[in-house]
């Protein structure tokens, strides 16, 4: 394959160029340039605000105690202050906030009958690059979907368990078993190999026609479900046929996957579980099996025990309602900091993966979020937001961007879409790209 590296571009710079050359660049850019990755990390229950907030603005800022694990990565980090998510206002303290963290839309109050949110940021990106990698996106977590409906506030807990939304009515189910993630990456990377794939395509074609027949018979509201079926089976079929047909330029893994190195399916605790999931994101990105991932450290209102941390005795949600008690605030901060450490772990890992003339981190955008600032008051102003990576140089990293109070979070997202090469005129309630985010 004729790859156009940055060096070939520089070499050719002085030469008088004809149109065909430009066309060849345009045609191969997607495959040849270093791919950009996007990942979002969601931490439930907000933060201990004073311990989170960084002092100083611009490049001259000091990492706060909670963010200190990122200090030595400063040139790749951007910290944001004063962003808020207006559409997550009201409703209740958690579900409305969490479900909107990547959609910036107001969810519909329902126990299920008419689930409604918006398309999430990760899925906007995934839809843009879906055809370039075997898996459009990975949705990961460590705890299963929360049980039941919350009759007190009137929401199904499905809302509190999903940050990735394929469309307004369809959240994306998460994989929580690290071994299954690896196997999935492996299979996706090796789709189309062997004699089974043609048969598989045939089989998928068969069931698609069953679904089309079914679709013709059912009511309008039932069509939504049948359409979901059609869309997920179609995407699987496309993957199989695309990989096995010789007509299209085949995708090649940037790193070979080996099932022998698949991780355990029974991690021994929360900490190991989270680490393994971070590793799986790294594998997905390094092999280029996917370029988009979302990870939930827990569901909204998660009360996972953090007793494995020295000095923490209570559950996560319990300490987030610290009621200004010193001891709970202390534990709250330890839990927040632990989350940042896991994030930093993945950042370092991607930084250590060379790619082109830089590394995978440099070509990524890793967004760390919580949907609340102070969990005690369910505050949706001044959200705790960090970005790592530079999207191949588009992000002006290494600074603390202190925006005017109540600047829409969606303005950051709009800028990230631009940096990714998936620019849009608007994202939800955005009013313009966040000033200071992009280079040049």
């Amino acid at each position: 394959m004729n790859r156009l590296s940055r060096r070939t571009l520089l070499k050719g710079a002085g030469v008088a160029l004809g149109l065909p050359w430009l066309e060849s660049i345009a045609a191969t850019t997607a495959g040849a340039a270093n791919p950009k990755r996007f990942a979002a990390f969601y931490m439930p229950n907000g933060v201990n605000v004073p311990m989170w907030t960084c002092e100083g603005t611009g490049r001259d800022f000091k990492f706060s105690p909670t963010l200190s694990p990122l200090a030595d990565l400063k040139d790749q980090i951007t910290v944001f202050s004063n962003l808020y998510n207006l559409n997550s206002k009201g409703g209740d303290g958690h579900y409305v906030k969490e479900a909107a963290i990547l959609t910036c839309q107001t969810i519909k109050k329902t126990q299920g009958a008419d689930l409604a949110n918006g398309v999430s940021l990760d899925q906007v990106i995934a839809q843009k690059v879906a055809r370039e990698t075997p898996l459009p996106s990975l949705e990961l977590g460590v705890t299963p979907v929360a049980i039941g409906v919350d009759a007190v506030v009137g929401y199904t807990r499905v809302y509190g368990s999903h940050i990735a939304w394929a469309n307004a009515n369809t959240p994306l189910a998460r994989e929580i078993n690290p071994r299954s993630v690896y196997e999935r990456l492996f299979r996706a990377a090796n789709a189309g190999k062997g004699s089974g794939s043609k048969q598989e395509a045939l089989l998928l074609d068969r069931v698609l026609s069953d679904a089309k027949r079914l679709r013709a018979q059912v009511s309008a509201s039932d069509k939504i479900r049948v359409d979901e079926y059609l869309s997920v089976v179609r995407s699987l079929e496309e993957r199989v046929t695309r990989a096995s047909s010789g007509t299209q330029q085949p995708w090649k893994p940037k790193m070979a996957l080996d099932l022998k190195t698949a991780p355990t399916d029974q991690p021994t605790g929360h900490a190991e579980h989270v680490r393994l999931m971070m590793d799986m994101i790294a594998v997905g990105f390094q092999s280029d099996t996917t370029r988009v991932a979302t990870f939930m450290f827990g569901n909204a209102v998660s009360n996972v025990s953090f007793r494995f941390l020295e000095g923490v005795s209570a559950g996560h949600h319990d300490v987030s309602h610290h009621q200004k008690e010193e001891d709970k605030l202390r534990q709250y901060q330890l839990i927040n900091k632990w989350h940042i450490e896991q994030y930093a772990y993945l950042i370092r890992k991607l930084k250590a993966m060379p790619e082109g003339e830089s590394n995978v981190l440099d070509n990524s955008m890793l967004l760390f979020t919580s949907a609340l600032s102070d969990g005690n008051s369910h505050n949706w102003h001044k959200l705790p937001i960090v970005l790592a990576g530079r999207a191949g140089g588009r992000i002006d990293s290494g600074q603390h961007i202190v925006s005017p109070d109540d600047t829409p979070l969606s303005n950051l997202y709009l800028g990230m879409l631009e940096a990714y090469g998936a620019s849009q005129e608007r994202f939800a309630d955005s009013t313009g790209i966040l000033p200071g985010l992009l280079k040049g």
Partner: protein
Amino acid sequence: MRIALFFLTSALSLAAVETFDSVQAFLGTHCAKCHQDKGGAGGFKLSRVTSLESLKTDGEKWKSLALRVKNGEMPPKGAPAPPLDDRVAFTQWVDHELRNQACSSGIVAGPSPIRRLNRDEYSATLRDLLDMHLNIGSALPADGAGGEGFDNAAETLFLSPIHAEKYMDAAKFAMDFAAKEFKSHNMIFVATPKPNVTPTQAADKVLRRFLTRAFRRPVTDTDVAPYFALFQNAQKQGDAFEPSVLFALRAALVSPMFLFRYEPPNPTPNPRPLDNFSLASRISYFLWGSMPDEFLTDIAAAGKLQDDEVLKQIIPRMVKNDRALGFSQRFMDQWLRTRELTTDKIPDDKLFPGYAGSEDLRSDIRLQPALFFRELLVRNLSVLNLIDSTHTIGTGLLEKHLDLKLPLNAGAKSQPQWVELPKGSNRGGLLGMPAVLIVSSYPYRTSPVLRGAWILDSMLGTPPPPPPPNVPPLGEEKAGAPAASVRERLTRHRADPNCAGCHSRIDPMGFALENYDAVGKWRDQDGGKPVDNTGELLDGTKFQGPEELRKILLDRKDLFLRNLTNKMLGFALGRGLTLKDSCTVDSIVARVKEKDYKAQALVEAIVLSVPFRNQAGMVVSKEQVKK
């Protein structure tokens, strides 16, 4: 489905009696400023709810209006708020009127949305289809819940790309398994090529039989043909007979006809009885969480399943079948929220090492409510046993945990047993079961608030409104002062008028359970002081301890039964209930009361109900009407 009736007091009719006029006055006083027609804030204009007729034509608007008033979301912060008693009276009136209106047009079938099999149903169906005893669905993501709080609700059974991948894998796995395992193999290969049977004939027979079972209804030539084509295709590739058949069957296991609960839609504008095969599936997935067996299918094939007497005979047979154990478990652990014992509700391991240290004990505790309910069904006992009972489910480990002497069969103490409780045991009914007491506690201490709210929500179906935003803290401890007890702190909390309204209704019932610690063990002392287990209802009724609380709940047995009926009907229909279903619920409740609250009577009344056996007429959209 729930509106109003949100507190025990509602049942005591403490709130002022409202009339349509006084309700209109309430709306005029509190809502008109913003929602008068020119204002119409938030897209809501008061004119929508100013006629009596609107209760009938715009019931859902009334319902959401009442919910917002009840939860204190409206009037919004800053506007003068109506007193809680007025809110209660208002929402109670709306609830009552909406139910009356819903019933004025008679009992209706309601929607029956298409839905996919949930994870448990998928596993169980593969198990029964192939006689394959592996939990093959465990690779699928868990399903969220909707409607009445169950993970079989059509509305939240969405599909993600990983589902498609896992279905493909599972189909291949299942067919590879069937190729090797004797029982599964024989279930599939009801015919094989012989000197007088061609491969084509054999394949046709095998496919027809399998597709009928997998799709849970008779198949036509048109249904079979494409699968037969897959078989032929594999044959052309040189595959042997069996692998060719299994390949075609793999497709069947990924077909929407297998993965979805499909019912041929009703093309007429009027409701009609469900076809026999759809009804067989409804009954089977309700009580067994799986496909109908041969017995049920045969009755359906004979066209007799809509016969009341036939249904009445089938139900006891089905609830006694081993497969119904899964129903008790799935229903109870979601209704009571005890499924959370495996996820978020983990008692502190340092404070409660006995619980943390024994997986067997935890498992006994988790299963106790489900097995108890199963006994009520199998023995056809009163569902009021859930409030108080002379019996419970015991094991050796539970006996020890509860510090009781139970008449267990000594040789099988690890096996759960239906046993009589000793007199004065304080363990009758759900509220004596550790599973319930743990799920309504914090990991490190009990919470009268959580327990009171749990009773109001899970047992009575009258959840309290959420706490207002910016709740003042329970009260900070002053340095050096002796630690205040939970009761002292809550008493101070209730002194705040913002909190008193709700907490004086929530907390007292929780206090009556203070003798049970955060893992459900009995205690007479807490922190060195005698446990204070007294409570007082708003009407002044004083009570003490769990036994008196059970009596108070038994006084509200119809509220309890109504809630249980709502839950089970929602589970049976696999959807959230609407206003129009409240009329069905009324009739089921009446039937069960006539039959002394018998558990099988409840199941029977649900199966015999209009929405369970019928399908609504096709909804004609406005555009279609214009055409």
